[in-house]
């Protein structure tokens, strides 16, 4: 399949995530949207990795080169960091819930003035 399909799919997922962050009012759903954005990036990185691998091997006909493998490593780093963020983020949301019994971000207006 051509690379464009993957790019369009990843961009669509990313946009869904951005829209979700901007319009939803529940902290957990906002957080889910952010995870969706991170996962769309994973998809895009893997697609680019395969693209560069194919391009690199098409360019030189000698021994196969391993260009493009670093993006696949990057994906693992994103997964690990996302997991670390989830553990911290959910703890913060739980702390918030214990105090105000709600996860609605509309409650977050005490600091405005």
């Amino acid at each position: 399949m051509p690379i464009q399909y993957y790019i369009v799919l990843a961009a669509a997922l990313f946009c869904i995530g951005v829209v979700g962050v901007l319009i939803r009012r529940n902290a957990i759903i906002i957080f889910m949207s952010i995870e969706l954005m991170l996962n769309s990036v994973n998809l895009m990185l893997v697609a680019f990795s395969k693209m560069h691998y194919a391009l690199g091997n098409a360019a030189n006909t000698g021994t196969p080169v391993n260009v493009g493998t670093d993006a696949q490593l990057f994906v693992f780093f994103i997964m690990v960091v996302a997991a670390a963020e989830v553990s911290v983020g959910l703890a913060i949301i739980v702390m918030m819930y214990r105090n105000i019994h709600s996860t609605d971000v509309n409650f977050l207006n005490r600091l405005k003035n």
Partner: protein
Amino acid sequence: MNAIIFSAGWGIIMMFCSFLVRNKSSFRHIAVVGLLVLLVVNILDSNGVAVFHIDSKNMLAYTRFGLLFNSIAIASTLIYVLLSGKDIARIGSYAAEYFILIFFVLCGVAILSSYNNLLMLFLGIEILSIPLYILTGSDKRNLKSNEASLKYFLMGSFSTALMVMGIALMYGGTGTFSLDVVRTETGLYKGVSFLEIIGLLFLMVSMCFKVSAAPFHFWTPDVYDGAPGVITSFMATIVKVAGFIAFLKLCYGRMTTTSTAIDWQLLFAVIIIATLLFGNITAIFQQSVKRMLAYSSIAQAGFMLFALFSLNDFASKGLLMYSAAYSLATIGLFAVLVKMKDVTFEGYNGLAKTQPVLAATNAIFLFSLAGIPLTAGFLAKYYMLASVVETGNYIWLVVVAVLFAAISTYYYFRVIQAMYFKTGEPQTENITGSFKFGLIALAAIIIIIGVLPQYLFNWLYF
């Protein structure tokens, strides 16, 4: 490499201390010892003595500039812990954890000052940010602290998602994560690709979030106001300038080589003017000194952005100067602020009568932030503006910046006016002699850097 491993290692050692050591006040001393060790190994590193020889495959590149910045960041943290260590330990019931998280933040700072690969940029930003989300919410019973923490977390992870998207697109365009891309006229990746420009724009937006440059600054006042005062001090100084160093490296690495395709200077000029405008104008109308300092940190970020605009020798020197001057002055101001019972301007009324040392040192810190000559802040602003003049483009930016600096003196001098020319009964917590001595030493450092800047810059070359 020394600083990265020692800071992470000391954090883990302190984790064990947190359940082995019963005496709460000793954590502060362990942290001070750790920071001293960190400072020594980092200075050794800049003189070529590496404790660990680890081949990072060019993912981390150590320059004198990065190592000097790292020394400044560690030294500022040391001063910060010495001045406000007791207040840090008093935020909540987990005294050791706050210091541990500060060490992990320093690990992120060390990565950001030496990264040479976008993967390391991402990891550095995350190692820096995740402990800060926790520190912001460390006052667990306080609703304002909770709210600031949740807001910071949602904004921070959103901007991280934008950052990784940018990195992915840049990878698509160039096929490498390394900062120094070899661009050839022939071959596989020739010229500047469209994907890379889009990716760089994403990355730029995300970095603007992290350093709170307008129009992505809206989280800053709320978060700085809601977080416990001592933590705000750390976030507004060391963390923010670390973000600027990372941004500067990114600009040197990728933006200079793509300037044929897009006019970065114009973009930065727009961001600088917006940041100076929002920061300064809103700071005028604040009633609380803490919130005023939050807006002033946005305004100071506007000045630091000049380094990214001009990208020359003056700019990198000036950013070092700015990071030292701004961090030290703001740490001092916040150290006094957390001792005050009332953090509005009225709360400072008549401070010069009851606490003359606090008022005098506070005045010097405010002079430095406003950029009055003989203080470090003046030279920092001078270097920033000189760098713009040296590029030769957009000279009118200098005029705008000077005008805004003049506006900024209004809200800084309001604090001085309250301290010296108004009468009142300011309520402060118990001020010890060593705290006063620390403030005087800090004010002396600011004046020494302002008069003899070569002592700072000599580290760059020798």
